[in-house]
Every structure is written in structure tokens, then in C-alpha cells.
């Protein structure tokens, strides 16, 4: 942060907040400051994501740490007139604790931030990602300097190994070990690949890191290159993230201009360059062998491991693939030391993890907590509980490969192993919260729909098995399920899991298995009681006309799209259940509340 300014206005410039007009807000704040002749005293900085996406756009004022939420472009005038000029807080724009109605001015005191510990996200929301000087001012590129000038590659690898860092992309493979294996592969050409193909729906930490702090990834990739003996890095990024791509390109250009990429970095003979390759919308490309094929310009189909990419990867050369969040944590480990990092977290999962909280939760956003934090703390303290005062039902972790955890798991300390033991997985860190209105059978069907669409088709269990599983779930949701379906569903799930080629198929039945385990009564109800307990599956709905209240106005009959309602004027109407498509129009249109749902 430039010290020549007395005050800084940090405005979130992440994808979410830009969609809520934060760029206009930035423009107006700048104009307002200029109009008051303050542009030399107060600086407006467009930062990366603050994480508190639910309340965006957000402005944080430094040095007093005031946190304004849900701003509109027209609030710019008041912020400058009141806060900047007169030093008065604008109460109506401050955060209000939804439970106590207490107004909170300082972000530190908000439940959302209090339990967080930001390592990978350390710079997101603090620096202007398009300005390398701001990254450098926060110790940026000093980790690579330390590695190149004071440490040998094997010392750096040892440090990463001792830190206990495990890959944040989903698998949880020890990062230092991966680096060591790649470093030992003998070849003239090796590659460092950053996996930024964040395909898990509902997870957006990689996007936020690249949008908010791209230099941390660049620096870590260079460190990895130094360790394994590679001079080429490639970032494989989803084409769906235009803003992240733009900021990454700017950062690469700046790093090159500063001599932090290219030849003779820090006066040593170490050379490193980074290119970008684009994904094209295929979830399976998050799997490292599929990703490598996609980088080679081929269909993103996985191949059997071994050989692992660390032995034979991109263009058959040894390739080290790590995820964005993994890379973002590396510079801190080098600077603060492995002991410090290893002191955070649980026995086998060290450090912190970023989670994307979404779904039916009050504080949707991006959070980072020490491993071992419980689900209850995450959902109820940081996440602020369930939306609209509804009842918590389940939380889905690990995306389409993960499972649904329930109330009984709320006090589970989250780490790689505890989630797997509970029948779910860490995955990339998506957490979708569901309430009493969500049907678990429909949820499993939703995930299978995703897998069916995203299965690459190479191996039969995944290509055909998932399709059959999806058909069975559709049958259940459409009220046509029979008893045998339940056994078949479970058995086929196990077969697909055991026999698929890659991680996609090996985990795709998890949503079914975990919901069958934890919510069997819902499956049971769909088949035996012929009802959907949460009311979400439309096929189970029955609309009836209450003979006592119906005055025979014919409005419902006229509006019914399938002419399922019959009756003459001033007489009670009847719904023909065989024709009714359960659209609910009749209930909406009836002025006398005489149509009800079973």
C-alpha cells in the first residue's frame, strides 16, 4: 500500500462484485474524490475478492478498517462526503449481525472473519492484483529470492515436505513428495503445470486467487521449477474465467518486465517462463492425465496411471501438476518456515483450507480456516446459519465426487481423512448447504446428471453405468420407483466406483451412496409411501379442490394448460389427476384458496 496516501478505499473487483456494479462504484468514488480535490490524499484500489460475496459489493476503508457492505454506485457521494471528509461512519451501510441486530463496523469483529485464518487468500482483498509493486510490498517474490540465493532445490523440497502440505485440488497427495518424485525423474525438459481448471460447480477459490493474487501463483510455480529442474511453466485455465485470465496475463507481463520471469532470475542462472493454455469446458480435465492431453490439443480423456505425470506427462516429459490454491500457499511456507505451517491444522492435514460456502446459507462466500475446524463452526458461525431461518439438512462437500453430510457430522473436525471416513471427501473445497426443502434423491439425480454429461466416454463403467444410475434416480423422482431399484442402485454404484478408469467415475456414485446411507428414509418414502418428504419432486404432488370453498368461478379451469380441470359455472370443479402436470397454476390463480396440495 502506497504510504503517500492518508487513506485507502479498497473496493472488491472480483467477478461477483463486478456483476453487482462495483466497477461503476470505483469510477464514481474516483470522480467524487477528484471533485473534492482529494485524489492525492485518498486512493481507490480495485482488489480481489474479500470472500464475503453475499454482501457485495464491499468497500473496506484503511487505516480504520471500516467495512461497508451491499453498496450501490450512488453511495459513492456519501462515502466521500461523510467518511472521507468528515470522518463519520455511515451507519446504514455497515454490516448488521443478522442474529443480534448489532451494527458492526470493524471487519475483525464480524463472525464471518473472526474464525478465519488466511494463508492462500492472504492478499485477496488487500492488494491491487494488477500492480506487482503491491504484491512485492507484502513480501512478494522474496520467497523465490530466498530459494534461489540461500537454498538448494533439495532443501526447498525438504521444507515443503516437512510442512505437511497436501494438494488442495482434491486428492490430497503430499506436495513435497510429488516435487521430489518429479525432481528425480531424469530428462532434459520438465514442466510445471498449474491446474486452474476449476470445474467443481459451487467452488470458486481458484478463480478468486487468480483474480485477487495472481503473482503468488507465478512465484510458487517458479519455485517449483527451481526444485524439480524445469524451466517452463504452463497455467491451464478455464475459458469461463475471463477476468482471471486477464489479470493473470497482466501479472505475467509485469513479472517479465521486472526480470522475475525469464533468464537469470535474481542474477542466478535459473530461467523460467510461463505460458497459458485454455480449457474448453470439460470437467474431466481437472484430472491430471486428462488435463495433460487437453494441453496437447487432444480430447481430454484420462489414461491409466502409472505412468504418473511426474514420470511421463506433458509431451511425455516429467510434469509436476499442482492446483492454484496449493501454489498460492507455497511462498508463505518458504518465508515463515515449515514448522509454523505444520503447527496449524490436524495431525495429517496441515495448514488451512479454503472453502466456498454456497447454497442455503446466510453468508455465501469464500473462507479459509485451519484444518480441523468443525462443520458447525463453518456453517453456523462463519456462514451465519441457514437462510430464512430454515432447518439445516445436509452439506455437500467435494462437489459431484463428494457426499452429503448430515446433522450428526456437524461436530466433525474437517480434514482430508475425516471427510473421507465420513463417506464424503475434501475435493476442491466446495460446500453446498441444503435445508429442509431440498430432496436428497433429487440432489443425487442432479449430480448424476452432471456426471453423465461430463463423463468422457472412454471407459464403459462410467459412460454406461452413470447413465443407468441417472435413469433409476429419474424413475424414483418421477414416482415410478419400485423396491428392486433401491438394491440395484446401490449395487451398480459400487460397481461403477470400483471399475471406472479415473477419479471421475471412481467417485461419481458418492452422492448416491452417501445419501442412501444418511437419508435412506427419503428413498424409502419415494418408493413405498409414494411421496417426496421435502415436497420438491413435482411428480408426487396432488392438487385437490376443496369443495367447501370452491365457488365455481372457472378461473382455474381456464388457466389450466392441459385442461385437466372440469366443471360448470357455480359448481365445484374437479381436477383429473391423470392429465394434471402439477404445474400449480390453478393454485396460484385461485382467489378463494380452495385448491390445496396433498
Amino acid at each position, binding site marked *: 500500500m502506497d504510504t503517500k496516501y492518508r487513506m485507502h478505499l479498497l473496493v472488491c473487483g472480483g467477478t461477483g462484485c463486478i*456483476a453487482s456494479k462495483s466497477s461503476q462504484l470505483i469510477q464514481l468514488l474516483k470522480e467524487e474524490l477528484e471533485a473534492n480535490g482529494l485524489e492525492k490524499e485518498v486512493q481507490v484500489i480495485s482488489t480481489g475478492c474479500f470472500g464475503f*460475496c453475499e454482501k457485495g459489493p464491499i468497500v473496506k476503508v484503511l487505516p480504520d478498517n471500516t467495512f461497508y457492505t451491499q453498496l450501490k454506485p450512488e453511495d459513492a457521494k456519501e462515502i466521500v462526503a461523510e467518511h472521507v471528509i468528515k470522518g463519520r461512519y455511515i451507519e446504514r451501510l455497515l454490516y448488521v449481525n443478522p442474529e443480534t441486530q448489532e451494527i458492526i463496523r470493524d471487519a475483525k469483529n464480524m463472525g464471518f472473519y473472526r474464525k478465519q485464518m488466511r494463508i492462500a487468500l492472504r492478499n485477496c482483498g488487500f492488494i491491487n492484483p494488477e500492480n506487482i509493486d503491491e504484491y512485492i510490498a507484502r513480501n512478494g517474490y522474496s520467497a523465490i529470492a530466498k530459494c534461489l540465493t540461500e537454498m538448494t532445490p533439495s532443501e526447498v523440497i525438504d521444507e515443503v515436505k516437512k510442512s505437511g502440505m497436501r494438494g488442495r485440488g482434491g486428492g490430497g497427495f503430499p506436495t513435497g513428495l510429488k516435487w521430489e518424485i518429479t525432481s528425480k525423474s531424469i530428462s532434459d525438459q520438465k514442466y510445471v503445470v498449474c491446474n486452474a481448471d476449476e470445474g467443481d460447480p459451487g467452488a470458486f477459490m481458484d*478463480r478468486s486467487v487468480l483474480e485477487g493474487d495472481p503473482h503468488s501463483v507465478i512465484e510458487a510455480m517458479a519455485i517449483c521449477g527451481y526444485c524439480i529442474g524445469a524451466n517452463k511453466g504452463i497455467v491451464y485455465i478455464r475459458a469461463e474465467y475471463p477476468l482471471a485470465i486477464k489479470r493473470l496475463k497482466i501479472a505475467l507481463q509485469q513479472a517479465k518486465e521486472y526480470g522475475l520471469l525469464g533468464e537469470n532470475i535474481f542474477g542466478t542462472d535459473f530461467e523460467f517462463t510461463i505460458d497459458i493454455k485454455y480449457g474448453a*469446458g470439460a470437467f474431466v480435465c481437472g484430472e491430471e492425465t486428462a488435463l495433460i492431453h487437453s494441453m496437447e490439443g487432444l480430447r481430454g480423456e484420462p489414461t491409466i496411471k502409472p505412468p504418473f505425470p511426474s514420470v511421463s506427462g506433458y509431451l511425455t516429459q516429467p510434469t509436476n501438476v499442482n492446483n492454484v490454491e496449493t501454489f498460492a500457499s507455497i511462498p508463505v511456507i518458504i518465508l515463515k518456515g515449515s514448522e509454523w505451517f505444520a503447527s496449524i491444522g490436524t495431525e495429517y492435514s496441515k495448514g488451512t483450507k479454503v472453502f466456498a460456502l454456497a*447454497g*442455503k446459507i446466510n453468508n*455465501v462466500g469464500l473462507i479459509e480456516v485451519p484444518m480441523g475446524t468443525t462443520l458447525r463452526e463453518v456453517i453456523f458461525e462463519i456462514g451465519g446459519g441457514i437462510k430464512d431461518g430454515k432447518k439445516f439438512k445436509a452439506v455437500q462437500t467435494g462437489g459431484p465426487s463428494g457426499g452429503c453430510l448430515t446433522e450428526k457430522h456437524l461436530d466433525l473436525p474437517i480434514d482430508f481423512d475425516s471427510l473421507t471416513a465420513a463417506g464424503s471427501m475434501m475435493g476442491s473445497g466446495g460446500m453446498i448447504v441444503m435445508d429442509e426443502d431440498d430432496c436428497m434423491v433429487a440432489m443425487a439425480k442432479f449430480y448424476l446428471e452432471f456426471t453423465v454429461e461430463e463423463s468422457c466416454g472412454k471407459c464403459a463403467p462410467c459412460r454406461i453405468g452413470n447413465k443407468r444410475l441417472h435413469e433409476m434416480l429419474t424413475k424414483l423422482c418421477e414416482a415410478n420407483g419400485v423396491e428392486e431399484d433401491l438394491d440395484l442402485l446401490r449395487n451398480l454404484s459400487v460397481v461403477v466406483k470400483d471399475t471406472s478408469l479415473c477419479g471421475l467415475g471412481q467417485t461419481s456414485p458418492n452422492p448416491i451412496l452417501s445419501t442412501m446411507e444418511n437419508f435412506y428414509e427419503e428413498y424409502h418414502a419415494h418408493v413405498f409411501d409414494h411421496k417426496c418428504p421435502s415436497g420438491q419432486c413435482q411428480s408426487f404432488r396432488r392438487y385437490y379442490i376443496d369443495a367447501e370453498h370452491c365457488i365455481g368461478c372457472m378461473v382455474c379451469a381456464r388457466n389450466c394448460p392441459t385442461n385437466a380441470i372440469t366443471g360448470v359455472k357455480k359448481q365445484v370443479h374437479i381436477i383429473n389427476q391423470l392429465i394434471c402436470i402439477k404445474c400449480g397454476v390453478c393454485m396460484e390463480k385461485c382467489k378463494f384458496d380452495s385448491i390445496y396440495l396433498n
Partner: protein
Amino acid sequence: MIPMKISETSVAKIEEICREFDNDKGELINVLHKAQNAFGYLPEEVQKVVAQNLNTSLAQVYGVVSFYSFFTMVPKGRYPINICMGTACYVRGAERVLNEFKGLLKIKVGETTKDDKFSLSSLRCVGACGLAPVVLVGEKVYGRVTLDNVQEILDEYKETVPV
């Protein structure tokens, strides 16, 4: 030589794109991204020229085009509508929003309206889960979309002068 239905300028454009990537078939996906940007879609003729220039087979190119959901072989509307069907949007009602669009535009997912104005597709997570459910029209993001918003969004794209 396969007879070309596309104009010579288009062929020249594709050749230029391929040259930019040194006619390297390893850059096929990047070439296709650029070509789709230039033409709006990737019809067979375009794929043929790409295959020739990168010295690879049409089957290879077609295999890649059909594999990745980002590539399309049918032209999109002038205002492509994308509904996010990621999990966060799904649990906040994206399916109902999608159905509303289908009903109002009278097209299915993957189709384009007769006047080539709108096309409808779903995509998986744009990473703006705080705004769920999310709809994109071109690159513009609409957040917290309700059923009532759907008509309003479409109305924003009323054209006074036919294009």
C-alpha cells in the same frame, strides 16, 4: 482438395490464426478458441481448413470440437443466454429460471430463436455463487435472478433497429 463453401477471406483468416500458433497441432484448442471468436461457431468447413493447416485429420479436429462443451457447431444467437446450473445456483432455483426462459423464448436448451436473436444454453458454475442463481447474457452477469426478472432481462435486449 476438398471443395470449400466458405469465402476466401474466411480461409485466409483461419490460416492467419493457425500461423499465429506456428501451425502447431498441439495448439489445436487455442486455435479453435480464436476461430470460434472470429466466426461465432465452428462449422465443418472451418474445421477442415484448420485440419489442413495444422497438418492433422478432420476426425481429430472434430473429435476435439465435439468433446468440449465450449465449442459449438451451430451459430449462437446475437445475445447468447447462459444459465448457470452449478450446484449453488441449482439449490437456489436455477432450474425454474431456465424453464421460464424456455417458456418465454419457446426454444429448448442448445437452440436459437428463429430470428437468431437469443440462444439458450446452460453452463456449470461461473464462480459467482454469492449471486445465485446467475444468468449470463453475452458477458453480462445477472445475479439473484427471480422468475419475474426473466422477462425484464429479455426486454433489455429489445432492438429498435433490426440488425
